[in-house]
């Protein structure tokens, strides 16, 4: 961990704090109303707001989680620094690709 990674991780954490609260509220709302796939998708499809919200969320979590995983790998496994960096970058890319694909899946009309 150095000052650069630290700033990215803390900044994305701060950005996500309110997004997490909204997301929990969304989950509660969806489960309370027993929403089906059709109900959910009818609200998200074609919505710029949902695209922006979850697009931002996915981007932030890809950075935040990959740096977090990097710390854990570095402290709790015997992997050397280059391997740890490679794993973290790979994981971040996996999250970004799958995440943005998931956002596209629910917002594209």
């Amino acid at each position, binding site marked *: 961990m150095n000052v650069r990674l630290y700033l990215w991780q803390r900044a994305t954490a701060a950005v996500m*704090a309110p997004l997490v609260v909204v997301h929990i509220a969304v989950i509660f709302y969806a*489960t309370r109303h027993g929403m089906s796939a059709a109900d959910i998708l009818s609200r998200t499809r074609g919505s710029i707001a949902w695209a922006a919200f979850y697009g931002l969320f996915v981007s932030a979590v890809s950075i935040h989680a990959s740096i977090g995983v990097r710390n854990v790998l570095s402290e709790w496994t015997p992997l050397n620094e280059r391997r740890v960096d490679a794993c973290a970058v790979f994981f971040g890319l996996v999250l970004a690709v799958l*995440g943005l694909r998931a956002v596209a899946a629910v917002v594209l009309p």
Partner: protein
Amino acid sequence: MIGRAAKHRDSALWIAAMVHRVSGLALAIFLPLHFLALGLALESEARLESFLRWSDQPLVKAAEIAFVFLFTAHLLGGLRILVIENFDWRDGQKQLATLAAALSAIVAFAFLVRVF
């Protein structure tokens, strides 16, 4: 390592840090699966719907409740760090950490009540 497990690891703040780390790891494992599930909508709405129905079974719902707890705990643990690092030092953090754990449990319990 010489000696048995150190007693300071009974401290509420140390436990808070461990919960934060372990919850982060659990969420890191969960997230790609979560994204793959949502991506099913790319195939068809029916495909997503059948997945949602599959996830109605009690074992999956129990796992979801666990994730809601971990998600909330990770958020509150993260807020603990952001406060320590960006504001003046405050005492009484142990009590706040315990409160955060209780709050996560309450949120998870509220979710449980909704889905069961």
